[in-house]
């Protein structure tokens, strides 16, 4: 197994929702510029884990986090870490495509604008480049100023990816990005994720094991809030070490 260095590392990460212990002592390393898939049955904590990485978990009422999440060796839960700066470096794409009710252009330009890019030419450039990287440019270049909500579901999701790319993150978190999409749109997003992994560290939560097998380099299996097993994707799918992983992979529960 060739390691390129770890971009993110969690140490003894615990999350509680009130009295419910949602994530139990998870320690996981996420390698740089690779796709890491998080799989497991519903309620296993994979989305909770994902939302810890950019501290979106703090938006959930009553959620408490303990343990460490290191980004390039620095704990993002340290008191003096600015969550805004953190989220610029870690983008996120959600389960339901959630473009803003603005034009396509404004959606992509939103991030750079709020982070201080004012120059129109520079913005145009960022928008074009981001849409190109999200493989959406050719489909929308003639209607950049139309409302984003007019796009199809798959296009909306790629727009959300472009919107995330526009703030030049280092990591992109995908939370079941294809859950609401048709097979053709799904294939496009998957190809895009593979493509993006050349430049970005990607973490994807999916309930679709085939998708995990198709897009990821590494896979982590969660169950009931615990990290059961992690390793290279071929190893997890072909030679799982844990019985529970094997049971899940072969479709005996979940």
């Amino acid at each position, binding site marked *: 197994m060739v390691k390129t260095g770890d971009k993110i590392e969690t140490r003894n990460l615990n999350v509680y929702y009130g009295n419910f212990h949602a994530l139990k002592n998870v320690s996981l390393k996420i390698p740089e510029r690779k796709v890491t898939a998080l799989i497991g049955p519903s309620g296993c904590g994979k989305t909770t884990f994902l939302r810890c990485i950019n501290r979106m978990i703090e938006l959930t009422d009553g959620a408490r986090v303990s343990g460490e999440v290191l*980004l*390039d060796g*620095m704990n*993002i839960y340290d008191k*003096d*870490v*600015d969550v*805004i*700066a*953190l989220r*610029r*470096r870690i983008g996120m794409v959600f389960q339901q495509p959630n473009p803003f009710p603005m034009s396509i252009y404004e959606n992509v330009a939103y991030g750079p604008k709020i982070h*201080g890019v004012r120059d129109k030419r520079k913005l145009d450039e960022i928008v074009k480049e981001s849409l190109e990287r999200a493989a959406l440019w050719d489909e929308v270049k003639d209607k950049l100023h139309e409302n984003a909500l007019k796009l199809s579901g798959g296009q909306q999701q790629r727009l959300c990816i472009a919107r995330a790319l526009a703030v030049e993150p*280092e990591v992109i978190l995908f939370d079941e990005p294809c859950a609401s999409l048709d097979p053709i749109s799904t294939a496009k997003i998957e190809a895009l994720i593979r493509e993006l992994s050349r430049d970005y560290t990607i973490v994807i939560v999916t309930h679709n094991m085939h998708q995990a097998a198709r897009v990821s380099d590494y896979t982590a299996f969660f169950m009931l809030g615990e990290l059961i097993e992690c390793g290279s994707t071929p190893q997890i799918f072909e030679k799982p070490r844990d019985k529970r992983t094997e049971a899940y992979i072969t479709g005996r529960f979940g």
Partner: protein
Amino acid sequence: MMPLRGRGGAAVREKFIEALIFTSAPIVVLIFVAILAYIFANGARVITLEFLLSTPRLAGMEGGIFPMIVGSVYVVAVCMLFAVPLGVGAAIYLAEYASENIITSTIRFFIDCLAGVPSIVIGLFGLTFLVHFLKLGYSILAAGVALAFMILPWTVRVSEEAIKAVPRSYREASLALGATKWTTIRRVVLKSAMPGIVTGVLLGLGRAIGETAVLLLTLGSAASAFIPTSPLDSAGTLPVLLYVLATQGNTADAYARACGVALVLLAMFLVVNIFALYVRNRYIKRYEGL
């Protein structure tokens, strides 16, 4: 690689704006706390058993406010007598019988229209139609009916929501047992919707208690010393007395008495509303418990 710490100037400006937003809520709360505190502090001093239970002398400058309490309760009772059957009946029709067609959309449109009529216009209408045309005179009946027109849209809306919130399965269960539609509505739907309807009725009642303009136009502004008996009697009411004392009193004593009247009126308003909130909360909890 970008640092994870510190953003500088922009953050300071944001904190300032957020501080403004954070102060807005206490300001709003404070305004109303000040109003309540003022009325409680000044009103409590004049309120005695005698003030509450005796009749006024010298056009309300002395004596008590008992006839006005009776008058207010009487007017609101008449109002409810008209508003509740009409409002709940309309709500049942809209929620249970009507299919969405031109008739219901027309009905809804007119209910919205009625909701948009300023209370003073309702008062004028009461004056020409009820007081003069129907020859009810300045009376409790005229005032009560005019108030009923005012709160009717409100009663319909809240009751309809309550009825629509009753799960479909309840209706189906009853119908499947061979109950007729009306039996189902009466025995099952209305029973489940009752807390919601009661909340709506109470909120309407709270609104009717304090309405003044309608009363000035349909009941007159006399500070009557008589305790009304017939619905065709004229009567003094708390809001009208408060208005008269406040604008014509012009002495420290009159203002103090006005505070007392305001406190009684406010207490009635608060009791009705808090009771409505209580009923609604219990009802929400019951549904969440299911």
